[in-house]
Each structure stands twice: as C-alpha cells, then as structure tokens.
C-alpha cells in the first residue's frame, strides 16, 4: 500500500478512533475499560483470539483482565519483561502479536493477539492502527485515573467537612444530654463514625482502687476484651470527681482490611473526650448549683423563722438594766434568747442553743419558744420546767437533735434567781466584789435522754451591783483565720474589765472585741448573749 493510500485509510478511521476513546473515558472502572478495549481490538483486527492481562507493577503477577479463551502459563512467555512499550510480531507462533504497555500508575497492560482470520498477517496499516489504539487506551486510562483521583479528592474533602460538622454537632448534642449512659453511647457512635473505627469503648474506673465501675462499647454487642486486645488502637482519658474515664478506639477501617489511626484521629478522639468531660462537669456543677440554691432557700426560711422568735425588745425591769443580742451566722444556727415578763415582778431569762443548723434547728427553736411560753404560765420551778421541756423536745426531735438550755426566773423585788442549766455553757455571776461564780447546776441537754432523771436547780440572789452574763458557745468558740478560739478566758477577762459599762454598751463592746479577734475569718456560729445588771 502506498503511503498516500495509507494516510487516506487512516483518515477514514480517525472518527472510529475518536469514538473508541469516548467509549473508554466513559467507563467507571478498570474492568469496564478493558472489556470495551477488548471489543475495540476485536472490531479493528479480525483475529482468532484476544487476551488482555494486567499487572499492578513490573514485578507482580499478570492477572487476566478480559479474554474469551483460557490463558495458559506458557502464553505469558510471549510478553516482554521490560518496563517499556514492547510490541512483538511473530510468524508461525500461537500468537501473532504481543504487547506490553506501561501505564501511568506503574501498572502494565499485556495484549496477546491471535492470527488474523484470513491468515493475511498484520499489515502496515494494522500495525499503525494498533499503535494508535494503544495510545487511545493509554490516554483513556490516564483520564480514568484522573477521574478516580478527582473523585477521591472530593470524597476526602467531603469527609473532612463531615468530620468537622460531626464534631460541632456532637459537642452541641452532648451538652444537651443529662443521662450519662446516653451521653457515652452517642460519643462512641460519633467518634467511631468520624474516625472509621471498627469499634469503640469507654471504661469508667474508680480512681483510687482502679475497679471498673462501668463500661460501654460500640457496637453494643462487641466484647470489651476484643477491643482492648486489638493491636491497632488509640486511647484518650480524663479524670473527674475521683473517676477515670478511658476512651479506646480499635481497628481503623480501610476498603481493604484495617490501617493505623492517624494523628487527626487521635485529635478527634481527644476532642470528643473533652466534650464528654465538659458535659459531665457541667452536669455536676448544675446539680451543685441547684443544691446550693435549695440550701440558700432553706437558710433564708430558717433565718426568717428565727428572726420572728428572737425578741425585738426586752422588757424594762425596775431596778435592773438588761440587754441582749443575737447575731446569726451565715449558716443560721439555732441560738435563742429571751426575757419574758411573768407578772408580779418576775421575769424569765432564757438562753438556749439547738444542735445543728438550718431549717431543722430553727423549727426546734420555734417548738421550744412555743412550749416555753405555755409552761411559764403555770409558774413552775425551773427544774420542773426543764423536765417538761425535755420530754417534749425528746419526743418531737430526731435522735441527733437536742437543746442546751439555761433558764433563770428572777424575782426582781428580792433579786432571787431560780436557775436551771440543761447542758448549756455555765452562766457567769459577777459579784460586786469581783467574785465570779459559774452556774452549772442542772442536767443533760433537752431532748438528749428521757430516763426521768430530775434536773437539779440552783437558787441565788442578785444583789445591788451584781451582774449576770449568759451566752452561747458561739462567743468562746469564735475562731480567727488561724482557727484560734476567742476562749472562755478572754471572755471572762473582758467581763471583769468592762462590767461597769451599761449593759447595751457592754454587749456592743464584747461583740466588737469578738469581731476584732475573728478578723477576716467567716463567722462560724451564732453569737448570742444576755447581760443583766442590778443597780
């Protein structure tokens, strides 16, 4: 064939080459490309058989890509082992043509073409056509690889967007969950999903004894040991409220088996673990805040109860001067004092302290106050009064609640005092001549025991110039920042040095002295006292 005839014939084939190329680039996978290329070859060369084989690298094994006949091991001997394009033509052999076509991804396409059906042999035109078709395949394969690369890039980019989106959504959703089990399940589902982990686990341990208190897995039915035994795993943990929370991810999935977790996976795991930690901490702080609010409401109620019981004004006693004070602590204690006009020149002086603080203490003070006013109407000796109050408080209070109680009935005409001390701090009687008497006679605190033991009373006379000082333990036990107490000694010394002051001034001065001692420390207990002076 002359050259101009050859060119003309090839020109006529150009459209067919173009169509072949377009067919190949539309293929979605390698199998489809080779299948279509096989058909193109068959249409171009009327040969006995066509075998297409492929190997992923120079050293790897050939694998059948497309053939309608069985391929034998000996057939592979026709193929060059070189890493460059090799086209061989044979005469009187099983195959007439063998081709090894290197591809851009370092893989190779092998082609074996049988004899032409008309036994004409491969013409120059056929040889040029084969060259062109190899170029067509190579270009289509490059296009396929580029499309695949582009798809992978888009997929990877979408995956990163998904990871970021999931991370944000998970943070929001975790912060809304209150039940910890649901919180952990969601965290595991999300972290497994965004890192492609095959399974995930949270183990919660007691920090001190390392005992496992709970463990949650994803998927739910997978065994904890299987996850922990995995060689491909990453971990993250945090401690909160004496518990250790350990997160484990195992076996990062790939299309072919498993792979190692990346640095990004570790960062994502840490981020989710931190979000879980924040949710647990927030829940804990919320509960604390609710509890604090509840306590504050209780304290406020207790304070208002106590405020109504403590006298706003003390009675005027002819020939005497009397003053008292109650400064409740922030926690609202159960201190109580009163002076009650009993008529006929008699007055009851009361000082009491309920064990504990808060609403229960305030309610017990309220009970004592009501009972006291009721019993005092019967003009009972203070020992009988104490016995009756003991029975009542014993019955109406829980076992750990009791009241230390000091009562003195003053006959203002004679100065006589009928006194009982039920487990309270001793009353201090400072005589005009500076002699100090501790008044301790009595018995146990009200409500402590109900064995019917009688209370022992004491009778004393308050003469002109004598002073009676009653107080609760909030005064001697007032502590400064180094936990040093104000002390009985300092209180008595203050009493001795300042007893000539008018009672109101005396009380104001001792309170100032206590505050001076306490300094910046918080007031730990109620400060309550009563000062009576006979003119």
């Amino acid at each position, binding site marked *: 064939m002359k050259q101009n005839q050859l060119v003309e014939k090839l020109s006529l084939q150009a459209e067919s080459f173009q169509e072949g190329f377009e067919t190949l680039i539309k293929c979605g996978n390698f199998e489809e490309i080779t299948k279509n290329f096989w058909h193109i070859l068959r249409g171009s060369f009327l040969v006995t058989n066509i075998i297409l084989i492929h190997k992923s690298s120079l050293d790897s094994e050939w694998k059948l890509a497309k053939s309608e006949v069985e391929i034998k091991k000996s057939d592979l001997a026709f193929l060059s082992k070189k890493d460059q394009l090799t086209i061989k033509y044979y005469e009187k052999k099983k195959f007439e043509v063998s081709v090894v076509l290197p591809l851009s991804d370092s893989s190779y396409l092998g082609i074996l073409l049988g004899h032409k059906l008309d036994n004409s042999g491969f013409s120059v035109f056929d040889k040029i056509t084969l060259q062109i078709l190899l170029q067509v395949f190579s270009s289509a394969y490059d296009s396929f690889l580029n499309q695949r690369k582009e798809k992978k890039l888009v*997929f990877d980019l*979408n995956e990163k967007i*998904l990871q970021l*989106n999931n991370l944000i959504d998970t943070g929001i959703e975790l912060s809304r969950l209150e039940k910890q089990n649901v919180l952990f399940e969601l965290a595991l589902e999300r972290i*497994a999903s965004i890192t492609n*982990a*095959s399974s995930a686990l949270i183990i919660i341990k007691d920090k001190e004894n390392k005992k496992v208190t709970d463990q949650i897995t994803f998927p739910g039915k997978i065994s904890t040991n299987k996850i922990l035994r995995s060689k491909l795993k990453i971990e993250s943990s945090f401690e909160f409220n004496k518990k250790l929370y350990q997160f484990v991810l195992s076996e990062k*999935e790939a299309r072919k088996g498993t792979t190692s977790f990346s640095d990004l996976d570790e960062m994502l795991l840490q981020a989710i673990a931190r979000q879980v930690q924040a949710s647990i901490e927030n829940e804990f702080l919320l509960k604390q805040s609710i509890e604090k609010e509840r306590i504050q409401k209780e304290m406020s109620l207790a304070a208002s109860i106590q405020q109504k019981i403590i006298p706003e004004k003390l009675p005027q006693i002819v020939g005497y001067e009397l003053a008292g004070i109650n400064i409740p602590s922030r926690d609202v204690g159960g201190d109580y004092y009163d002076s009650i006009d009993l008529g006929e020149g008699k007055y009851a002086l009361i000082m009491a302290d309920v064990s504990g603080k808060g609403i229960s203490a305030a309610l017990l003070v309220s009970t004592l106050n009501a009972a006291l006013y009721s019993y005092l109407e019967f003009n009972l000796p203070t020992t009988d009064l104490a016995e009756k109050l003991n029975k009542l408080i014993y019955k109406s209070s829980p076992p750990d609640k009791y009241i230390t109680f000091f009562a003195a009935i003053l006959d203002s005409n004679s100065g006589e005092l009928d006194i009982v001390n039920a487990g309270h701090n001793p009353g201090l009687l400072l005589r005009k001549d500076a002699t100090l008497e501790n008044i301790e006679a009595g018995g146990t605190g009200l409500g402590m025991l109900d064995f019917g033991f009688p209370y022992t009373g004491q009778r004393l006379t308050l003469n002109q110039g004598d002073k009676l000082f009653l107080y609760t333990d909030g005064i001697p036990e007032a502590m400064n920042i180094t936990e040093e107490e104000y002390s009985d000694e300092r209180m008595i010394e203050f009493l001795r040095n300042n007893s000539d002051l008018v009672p109101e001034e005396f009380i104001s001065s001792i309170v100032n002295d206590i505050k001076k001692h306490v300094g910046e420390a918080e007031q730990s207990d109620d400060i309550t006292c009563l000062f009576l002076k006979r003119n």
Partner: protein
Amino acid sequence: MSTDFNIVSEIHNDTLVMKTDGYINNTGGEQIVLEFSKHVSNINKVVLDLAKSKVVNSIGISYLLEMVETLNQNDGKLYFTNLDPTIEKTFKIMGLFQFAEKVDSIDSVLK
C-alpha cells in the same frame, strides 16, 4: 472487624429492597454491595431502608457510592428511606443525594 450487621432483602419486580440493621462500615457496606451484585442484572431500582442503622462511616459510604455509580450506568436509581437525621446529614455532605433520593416509604418507590 465487627460483624454486628444484618441485612434482609426482597425483590419487587425491578426493585431490590434491602433493610439493614447495624453499623454501615466496611463489613456493612461490603454486605450491601454483595447483596446488590447478586441482583444487579435484574433490577434498576434499589431501596435501602436504614431504620435500624443509626451509624455510618466513610468506608460504608464509599460502598454506597459504588452502588450508586453502577445503578447510574444502568439508568437505575438508589433510594433511601427511614433515615436517621444524623445519617441524612452525613449523606448530604458526602454528596450521595446528587445521585440518590430520599423517600418517605418503600411503597412510594414500589408504586
């Protein structure tokens, strides 16, 4: 690998209905495509009912995309139903809805 995944399939004329149960990961995705490939020559619509699948990862999605491509080449279509909101958002971000469709029920495809 976790094998905590189950699939139930039914053929209705030219439609393959698959109901999945569990994590759509490598194992789950592989099983879906395997089931699909058994019927690919006889169907051109696939409905995936994901009522019992609440978690999917990107490997599982790559299998679904593979199935979408095969269906597109055959002028077929993939439909999803009973999607968990998180999975729906995941599919949206990963571009699955460019070629597949969310439907309210299996019946709406079978009609």
